[in-house]
């Protein structure tokens, strides 16, 4: 499935749509095909024609962040793609079940990576997401380890993951693990969503976290395996 990801683009600016399509076309392995392009969520095909939804959060001047939960529940893996960088909005969208948040400034570097990660139920942490996690003021936020925070901070500051690895005297792979673990911890929080369960289950399969580390995982495991494929 990772070799052929169908994506739907919900975006009201033709220029942005062109940009996203050109980034997808520039992927040498041609792993993604664009199944649908619509300017509003109402235009999405039923039954759905795509696995991953690249969703602009502001359509025709209207914020559609509150539709993330409904669209996630209907089976889409959502990558929010927005000009907004407000940490509160980012946390809300993740809480509603989105896989990743990519600000428009980060699109060129991270959108394709985020779409592929979402299709595989894997986390993708952009710098804007790292910032939102670092600045999360909510009392119920997940407890991050010192290393996880340090890796997130250096990533937010703009270092490449290789530079973060050198700085922390660890391997680049371990840097990825620290950052992804911080993200996965958020999947245990807030309202339940199939997409969060899928992200957690995959993280456990990948050995990113152990079932015991996730307080709520036992309750999730007792539920039927999320029907996402």
């Amino acid at each position, binding site marked *: 499935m990772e070799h052929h990801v169908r994506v739907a683009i919900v975006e009201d600016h033709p220029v942005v749509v062109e940009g996203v399509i050109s980034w997808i076309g520039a992927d040498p392995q041609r792993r993604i095909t664009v199944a649908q392009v619509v300017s509003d969520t109402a235009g999405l095909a039923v039954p759905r024609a795509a696995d991953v939804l690249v969703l602009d959060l502001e359509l025709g001047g209207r914020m559609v962040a509150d539709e993330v939960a409904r669209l996630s529940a209907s089976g889409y893996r959502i990558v929010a793609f927005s000009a907004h960088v407000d940490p509160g909005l980012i946390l809300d969208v993740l809480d509603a079940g989105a896989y990743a948040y990519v600000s428009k400034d980060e699109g060129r570097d991270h959108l394709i990576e985020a779409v592929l990660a979402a299709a595989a139920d894997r986390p993708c942490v952009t710098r804007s997401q790292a910032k939102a996690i670092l*600045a999360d003021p909510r009392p119920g936020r997940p407890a991050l380890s010192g290393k996880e925070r340090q890796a997130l901070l250096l990533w937010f*500051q703009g270092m*490449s993951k290789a530079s973060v690895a050198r700085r922390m005297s660890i391997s680049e792979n371990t840097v990825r693990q620290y950052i992804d673990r911080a993200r996965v911890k958020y999947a245990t929080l807030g309202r339940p969503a199939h997409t969060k369960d899928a992200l957690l289950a995959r993280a456990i399969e990948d050995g990113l976290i152990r079932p015991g580390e996730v307080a709520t995982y036992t309750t999730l495991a007792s539920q039927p395996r999320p029907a996402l494929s």
Partner: protein
Amino acid sequence: MTAWPAPGPRPSAVLAARYARALDIAAVVAVAGWHLAGAGPLLVAHLGSYASDQFQITAWCAIALIIAVGSVLLLRGYRGRGTCWALAGAALVLSTAAAAGCPPAQMLATDWAWGTAGWVGVLVLLRRPLAELGVFLSLEALATFAVLARDGLHRQSVAAFITVLAGSAGIQLAIAVAAGALNLPARQAAAAATREADASARQAAADRIRTARRARWLELRATAEPLLRGLAAGTADPADPAVQRACAVEAARLRRLFAEADDAPEPLVHELHACADVAQRRGVAVDIETAAVIPVVPPEVRRGITDLAIVVLVNAISRVRITVTGMVDGVIVSLVSDSPAQPELPSSPGWLAVDSQRDQQSLWVEARWNTT
């Protein structure tokens, strides 16, 4: 930038408060003194002639209690209309009842309560508008006159009533008017002192700002002037990249100087934007991000941080990402740029922890400042 004097009571306010306090104490002493030394002996002298001695003594004690309560309220600065008038009303009722218990035809000679009730009015209504005391004294006089009329009016009794009225209510009203008049010069003195204090505070602030600006300007001149002289004399070559960088540094420092005088909600971020301006004009893409709540950063710390930022910005080829992260106990500022070489960073004071790392084309510089 500028340390403002700690706010304290203005001298004028202290003066006005002292005047008002002295007046309050005088009123308490006068009213309590009248009740003890004036009304008390009058009551004692006529015991036996009242309808009920016990009632007269009880009424005297009750009015003493009202005076005590009224005094405490006045000295504590309380001036609520309801409570003041409840006390005044109680004194009015008690004094009228006491007058009604006086022997017929000898009411004016034996009544201790009329005068004392008027003084209670002065006490509890001293901080209320003068008209309220006027109303109270009129009611008191009308009530007493009604008791007098009960025994039958004749020329002598009316004349005696007017004499007593003039001697008591007249004096009480006059004292209240005088108290108000005394307050007026106090208020004027207070206003004048306030104006003077404001003017000197403004002057002090202006002096401090001027001194701080001058210090910054002298500092700038020490580095900008030799550069300008070199350019003018031809000893510095504008085509030399080192000279170009030196010019860019001075331009950024000038912009920062202007930014420091601005009133911005987050001065550190505002000054970093000012520093970035020169690099942006050069075509460097500068991206400034803030995370979490930025604490208040003192001017000298902002200086240390922006000094670092200027060097990084001037040496960047095409992009710089600046992040400002607020921590519980400080702030972390980092700059990630593409620099061809490791620039020489300015030496930082001990309270600013500076770290840097170079990887291929990328330079990471971080400054941490802790509030503790």
